[in-house]
């Protein structure tokens, strides 16, 4: 097989709300170029799906009442035979009747899901011979991975395929081998502890329901609504200020028509670091929202515009309605379930909060503040008093002649350090990672020991975002999994070219079948 080139590689990352994808790895990695709302519409024929809402156009009649204002978003196309003159129209804006195949990260409608993937694939219009890297949600089970593998090989005849866990991909993007990844999605949160590039699957918090961006937004909106949103709400102290941003798909058109003017936009811009799309001043917020909630404008429900409100950290905590605490408790559960107690400290010091649900500005700070307030073990008089205790020094636990040796697994499997990752982070490929992020070798010996340890956490820190990827600065690293996927795709498909079984080839698939995917993926 000829080697793969950067421009041939496809990456697809399905999400409950948005599926992002890209054909080709650019020289400098960029955020995903293809973005598709993760929903399809039932086609006329049962079991088939269309990417846009399609209606049979009743030519003689006026458009239905509730479609006002959506007309300019409609495209008509003639898909029927000439004689009958039945006109179907695609409504590219309406999401009425849409089916969302991924709910809380789980694939709940496979037919629709496969149709969505096919749509995304076709949108990119790929040439022949494109290897595919699929970013998997933590909620997908190994058997589901096999099902996906079968689909990609048999539907797209892909020459090479690999799966990468989204949390792992995020850690690749940040260039760290150990991290606690908190991925805040639409309706759920996933929390994964990763040590030396291996996710701890046992205590992983998968799809914690009711904790996503949706819940946070609702909490804040109802708070704002109850209080009557106005400028007095903003805390005086600048330090306390946190900004709340949410995407308002409903009001894109209204806003366009509002004509905020140069000045308004510029002012809003000044208050922002994140959020590349159009912004409006918070003063307009209420009015804007009211319009959006009426059922009168279902046609306006796509597009999306980033809205911004500023609230204090405390208010944020109150508004989250227990959501922050629920997430914080789950982080604690996740780290505490890492069997190797000596790894927990480092996991607490390497928190990554990602996912578009965490875009609400101030959220990351508020989560960190909540975690610190509840879980950090204070350096109390007791701790100081006994500070001579080496709480982070491992003591071998075995006794007698058989001092335990770190052993590799008896029979293969997945919990070993992937040589690819080592390669990616060591001198062999220095261009792939930002410098200074190579402490992997130090940490590796501690892998298999158990010992007595002090309580954790004694500190909680967020990992600094990578500075190596200029195109990611502006939009932020909430979709860092996609960045990590690009790094990984480069490593497995281009640099390594299969030497370390970083992907499954079509002949591999034909020989071994979909269950073998676990021996290949990252």
């Amino acid at each position, binding site marked *: 097989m000829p080697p793969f080139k950067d421009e041939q590689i496809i990456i697809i990352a399905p999400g409950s709300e948005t599926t992002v994808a890209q054909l080709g790895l650019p020289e400098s990695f960029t955020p995903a170029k293809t973005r598709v709302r993760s929903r399809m519409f039932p086609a006329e024929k049962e*079991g*088939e799906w269309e990417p846009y809402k399609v209606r049979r156009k009743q030519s003689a009649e006026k458009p239905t009442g509730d479609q006002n204002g959506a007309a300019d978003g409609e495209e008509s196309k003639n898909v029927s035979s000439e004689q009958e003159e039945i006109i179907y129209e695609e409504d590219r804006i309406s999401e009425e009747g849409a089916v969302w195949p991924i709910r809380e990260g789980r694939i709940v409608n*496979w*037919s629709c899901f*496969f*149709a969505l993937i*096919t*749509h995304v694939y*076709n949108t990119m219009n790929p040439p022949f011979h494109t290897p595919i890297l699929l970013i998997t949600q933590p*909620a997908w*089970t*190994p*058997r589901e991975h096999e*099902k996906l593998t*079968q*689909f990609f090989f*048999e*539907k797209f005849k892909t020459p090479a395929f690999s799966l990468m866990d989204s949390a792992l991909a995020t850690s690749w993007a940040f260039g760290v081998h150990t991290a606690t990844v908190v991925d805040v999605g639409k309706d759920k949160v996933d929390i994964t502890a990763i040590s030396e590039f291996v996710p701890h*699957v046992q*205590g992983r918090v*998968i799809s*914690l329901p009711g904790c996503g961006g949706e819940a946070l937004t609702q909490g804040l909106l109802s708070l704002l609504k109850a209080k009557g949103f106005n400028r007095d709400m903003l805390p005086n102290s600048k330090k306390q200020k946190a900004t709340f941003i949410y995407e308002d798909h409903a009001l894109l058109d209204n806003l366009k028509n509002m004509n905020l003017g140069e000045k308004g936009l510029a002012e809003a811009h000044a208050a922002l670091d994140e959020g590349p799309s159009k912004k409006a001043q918070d003063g307009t917020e209420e009015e804007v929202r009211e319009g959006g909630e009426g059922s009168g404008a279902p046609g306006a429900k796509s597009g999306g515009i980033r809205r911004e409100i500023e609230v204090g950290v405390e208010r944020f905590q109150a508004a989250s309605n227990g959501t922050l605490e629920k997430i914080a*408790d*789950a982080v604690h559960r996740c780290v*505490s379930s890492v*069997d*190797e*107690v000596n790894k927990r400290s480092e996991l607490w010091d390497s928190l990554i909060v990602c996912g578009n649900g965490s875009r609400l500005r101030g959220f990351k700070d508020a989560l960190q503040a909540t975690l610190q307030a*509840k*879980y950090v073990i*204070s350096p*109390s008089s*007791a*701790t100081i*008093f*006994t500070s001579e205790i080496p709480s982070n020094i491992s003591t*071998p636990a*075995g*006794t*007698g*002649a*058989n*001092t*335990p040796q*770190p052993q590799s697994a*008896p*029979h*293969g*499997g997945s*919990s070993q350090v992937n040589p690819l990752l080592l390669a990616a982070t060591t001198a062999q490929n220095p261009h792939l990672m930002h410098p200074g992020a190579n402490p992997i070798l130090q940490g590796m010996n501690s892998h*298999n*020991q*158990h010992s*007595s340890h*002090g*309580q954790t956490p004694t500190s909680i820190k967020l990992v600094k975002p990578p500075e190596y990827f200029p195109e990611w600065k502006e939009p932020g690293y909430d979709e860092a999994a996609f960045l990590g996927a690009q790094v990984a795709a480069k490593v497995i498909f281009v640099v390594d070219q299969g030497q370390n079984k970083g992907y499954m080839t079509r002949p591999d*698939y*034909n020989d071994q*079948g979909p*269950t073998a995917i676990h021996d290949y993926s990252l």
Partner: protein
Amino acid sequence: MASTNAPAAEYAGDEVSAIVLDPGFSTIRAGFAGEDVPKSVCPSFFGYTDAESDSKSQFLFGENAIHTPQANLQIKNYWGSDGIVEDWDAATKVWEYAITSRLTSTKPSNPLQNGLNEGSNGNGDTMDVDIENVEQAEKPLEDSPLLMTEPGWNSSKAREKCIEIAMEEWGAPAFYLQKTGVLAAFASGKASGIIIDIGASHTSVTPVLDGMVLRKGVQKSPLAGNFVSNQIRMLFKQSQPEIPLTPHYTVKSKVQVDAGAPSQATYKTFDLPPTDSFRRLEEERVLTEFKESVVEVWPGPQRFNMGPSEEIAKNQPGRPFEMPDGWNQVFTADRFRVAEGLFDASAALVDSDNPRPKDEHTISRLVQAAVQQVDADHRPMLLGNVVVTGGSSLLYKLNERLTQEINTIYPSTRNKLIAPGSVVERKYAAWIGGSILASLGSFHQLWISKKEYEEHGASIVEKRCR
């Protein structure tokens, strides 16, 4: 996942790895044979909400569901106090959850809309495979053989129940049952040895000879992790002043206070406080942390209550512990005391709910009783292969003490403890042994096929799984 109509050039095999299920009192371990760790580790505790006037009663499974305070949420466990499953209904559901939520799929997909049968709109061509046919989609284990573990003292009735669940409810094509002791030995690469498993509800000692359990030698006792948890509870209660055991969910925010000073935390208020069983589960999280970071087994050479031990212990640097509400203290001699009962019944803390343990229940006495049942010829060999597993064997310095105790009882044999250095191997030893067994080419000679089950009924398990 057999592809029935796949073109000849494409993969058409039906090699499906077995699923290994290792249910314990605290967690259920499940995963695919051939892998080195169980991918699914789920709590054996489950939530139950009582039927209120308008709603139905409901079962809740998995970590996410059982740790959220909720007024009417009760926490239960399906195990009986004798180490045999008591609530079979719940057990079936929890086990199924452990398998489907993280291994197979949460909802058996409806073949009418699983998408693999239809072409999709995109480029119009239809899929050339028919991956699942209708019958296949319904039961959770339709295509996976199942290896299940059981404690050495399981009843025949319970064993038959296991095969019934696997065959009838889950539709497994093949089933095998093996004792945790044998599997743990297997994981250490031993066909013979004495397996000491210190879990949550029970400690067991199992003599295994050439891959067979010596049934009359199997010993069990309730002196295990839960016992140590209760010792810690009593230590807290009996302290002056009493040490309040506050789980995380009761605390809103904590304030740093001096060692031993009362907490100044702000506590949460609940309109309807969560149930006692919920509180107990959450307290257990704190106790586990205490075990991990404070408790230490007195390593000997003398018992803790004898000679200068306690004096020595007092002069060692203590270990600090902070409660979720900020209360903190340094623990010195007490951190040894709470584990001492495992080896010395007379040293155990007692109160009206927790009577003095029986002497014959200490780990040392269990080993002695087990070895007693073994042919004298075999004893030296077994004592040279003492395998230590179970979550509570991770108690700091436990192995030192165990070595000490065994050497005191058997001064003239060459005793050797085999304790995997990796925490994972220690905690999941029985599962790992099962994973090895079920991935062997000869596994299909061991298992009971569906056909055999249909022919002979559930009682076949007594004949075939020894």
